[in-house]
């Protein structure tokens, strides 16, 4: 039923206005959207941890920039200190176009255009905020992993000094500050996520001609060095 109600709103959006998400979306469809669009960086549900992005348990009605142990972008902290609070409305705007809402956010996401999609996604996320005791079990706490990396490769401890030198090859495109506009932010990722991503390019599992080329000549130690450097970059 809900989708039929939202559809005409979308048409209007196409004519110039920007449609807002509606309360009452379909959480099951929202879960699918979360898996496809969000789960490579965010966890939610029991045992959710910070990964490339902060965990999203209890995000509704929380002040922005407050998840313990997560390093936010400067712009997000500016918005947070100016009082930004995550509500249905602010989350809707942020997800629709992250870089319009928080200009130099580190969130590597172009935005979710469809108000219907956002309604469903927010319906799904809201389940993890209403009451912590009710957080559903067996939620997709594991991030979407597109590649398996051997444990011995993940266990390599990288040399951040070498990583800093190697990183100069990255910063011709990726910004040290984490600012991103067309080229993703790669700063402050958990090392294992970084290593997994680079090996996915190296092994051709993830496709991107520049990244496959750059990753193909990095050794396991060099990838670990880069991960170690970027994980803790200020």
């Amino acid at each position, binding site marked *: 039923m809900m989708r039929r109600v939202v559809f005409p709103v979308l048409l209007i959006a196409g004519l110039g206005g920007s449609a807002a998400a509606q309360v009452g979306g379909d959480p099951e469809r929202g879960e699918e959207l979360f898996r496809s669009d969000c789960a490579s960086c965010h966890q939610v549900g029991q045992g959710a941890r910070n990964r490339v992005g902060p965990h999203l348990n209890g995000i509704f009605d929380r002040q922005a920039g407050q998840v313990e142990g997560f390093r936010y972008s400067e712009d997000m902290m500016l918005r947070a200190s100016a009082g930004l609070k995550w509500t249905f409305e602010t989350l809707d705007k942020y997800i629709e176009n992250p870089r319009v809402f928080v200009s130099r956010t580190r969130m590597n996401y172009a935005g979710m255009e469809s108000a219907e999609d956002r309604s469903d996604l927010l319906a799904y996320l809201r389940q993890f905020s209403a009451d912590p005791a009710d957080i559903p079990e067996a939620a997709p706490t594991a991030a979407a992993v597109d590649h398996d990396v051997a444990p011995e490769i993940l266990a390599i401890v990288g040399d951040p*000094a*070498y990583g800093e*030198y*190697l990183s*100069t*090859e990255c*910063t*011709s*495109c*990726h*910004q*040290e*500050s984490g*600012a*991103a*506009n*067309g*080229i993703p932010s790669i700063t402050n990722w958990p090392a294992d996520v970084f290593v997994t991503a680079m090996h996915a390019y190296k092994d051709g599992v993830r496709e991107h*001609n*520049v990244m*496959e*080329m*750059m990753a*193909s*000549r990095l050794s396991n130690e060099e990838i670990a060095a880069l991960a170690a450097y970027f994980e803790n970059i200020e």
Partner: protein
Amino acid sequence: MKLNRRAFIGTAAAGAATLSAPTVMGQGNGRPRVVVVGGGAGGATAARYIAKDSNGEIDVTLIEPTRHYYTCFFSNLYLGGFREMDSLGHSYGGLAGDYGINVLHDWATGVDRDAKTVSTAGGYTLPYDRLILSPGIDFVDGAVPGWDISVQDRMPHAYKAGSQTELLKAQIEAMPEGGTYAMVAPPNPFRCPPGPYERVSMVAHLLKQINPTAKILIADPKQNFSKQALFEEGWNRHYAGMIERIGPDFGGGNVEVDPEAMTLSIDGAVENVDACNVIPAMKAGRIADIAGITEGNWAPVNAADLSSKMDENIHVLGDACAQGDMPKSGFSANSQAKVCANAVRGALTGTTVFPARFANTCWSLIDTDDGVKVGATYEATEEKIAKVDGFISETGESADVRAATYQESIGWYDGITTDMFG
């Protein structure tokens, strides 16, 4: 020194420099001194990395005549109406303020390799322990008969971005209905191999909107050019019937211009043209010649650290050097600068010198949301910078891929200019 146009401009700029930077000499205070000439993709990056990574242990001076630097990369997008000129301008305030680099707006006019000093048009003499030259390109005299630098306002090269680019765009916009924009393309090697052809695409995009019956005529001394299949596919798709290219088999290398009459002669056939973009053969920026480290038109360098093959205390970056397989591009210069900065810092302060590694990617825009790219990685061998691996966009790619490639190029522009200027 001859009082030519360049020297005159230099003297004027130096006058301003005198007021703002009265005591440049002797600022080293015992620290090793690096002087960088040229504040583009090579020089700005090298200065920034040496200053940043040495934490004040090395005294870095950057000599650059212009206060506002306009990037050559993306200047074609200004011609096409995709970028404002202001968005291509960058100042040196961050390099001076955030990294403690002495930025001197002046022309470097002499190098004394025995005394290890650089002299400037403004009258300074700057001692160095290492000198990094990143002067970009100049044009070969007499390369296109009828053209010299004194007629650059009548027939712009627009191959150094800024007022030349604005002038060329104004001339294209002023063309009569159905008029002709001509480009005299340069012979290899030259700055930005896909540049002339991206420019043709952007001029076509502009003309399609304001003067759809106009023609584009390219006289080209080269049989083949960078990303040729991609450009030709795009020209057929977006600008059918507008662009004609005359290659060397039909006299594209045998041209002469008459700036007074606004004619272009190709293999003896004289054409009237309404805007004429002459991109002559190129050579290293003049200071490389003055320093006596060129061989032919370019400055040969060692691959491992971009040091001159003729003077181990001088490094040459970017378009000006002859290094091997890398194309002359802003990305290449930026890549070389970081290898050079690491080596120079190691030589002067004993920090670890990591092995050289290089990369390049060049994005080009053919029409709205139709971006393509080519890239490669490189390594240092005894002989040269040698190609390792590479890729190029494919013909027939989907519109989504091309739009994503264009978006990526915008991100790259922000990334590299941040890497250069902080």
